[in-house]
């Protein structure tokens, strides 16, 4: 399923809403999560999962082709931990 299909499904389930509004609703949700992560905040959605940001410390890497060493800067990566309910549902049946 891609975002447009998710929106189509939401429009189908909510015939009283305009497609334009459903697009804004879905967009707002993901934008809010992204903005929180960009600030370094965590987003916890009980039953579904939690988004957080992990720090990857700076390290000395190596160019695998030339063997040359390169300094890799510290970076932050988004991380998602599946919620308990969803994890259990994925494994039912």
């Amino acid at each position: 399923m891609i975002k447009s299909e998710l929106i189509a499904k939401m429009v189908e389930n909510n015939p009283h809403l305009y497609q334009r509004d459903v697009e804004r609703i879905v967009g707002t949700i993901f934008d809010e999560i992204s903005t929180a992560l960009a600030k370094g905040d965590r987003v916890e959605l009980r039953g579904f999962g939690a988004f957080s940001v992990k720090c990857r410390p700076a390290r000395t890497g190596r160019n695998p082709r030339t063997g040359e060493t390169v300094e890799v800067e510290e970076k932050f990566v988004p991380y998602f931990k599946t919620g308990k309910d969803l994890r259990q549902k994925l494994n039912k049946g």
Partner: protein
Amino acid sequence: MSTKTRADLSEAVYQEVGLSRNESAELVESVLDEIADCLVSGDNVKISSFGSFLVRDKRGRIGRNPKTGEEVPIEPRRVLTFRPSQVLRERINARSK
């Protein structure tokens, strides 16, 4: 650092669209439900400029209780992984500089 919850997402939807707080909360819930149902059915979910939720099958293996050293079978299972999009990765790193 603070933690955001469903309430914050509902509030954002409420501010953005002219719906009641109640309906905003219900819509947030149903978006999460649609995603979860799709994943449970075994289908991946891809949200452009955000990321992909991928369902992966893990084979069973023999695990070990690290404390007792005892062998425990780990059943085959399905796990969910999230692959953040390039756009999200860049947004998250922009803050630190």
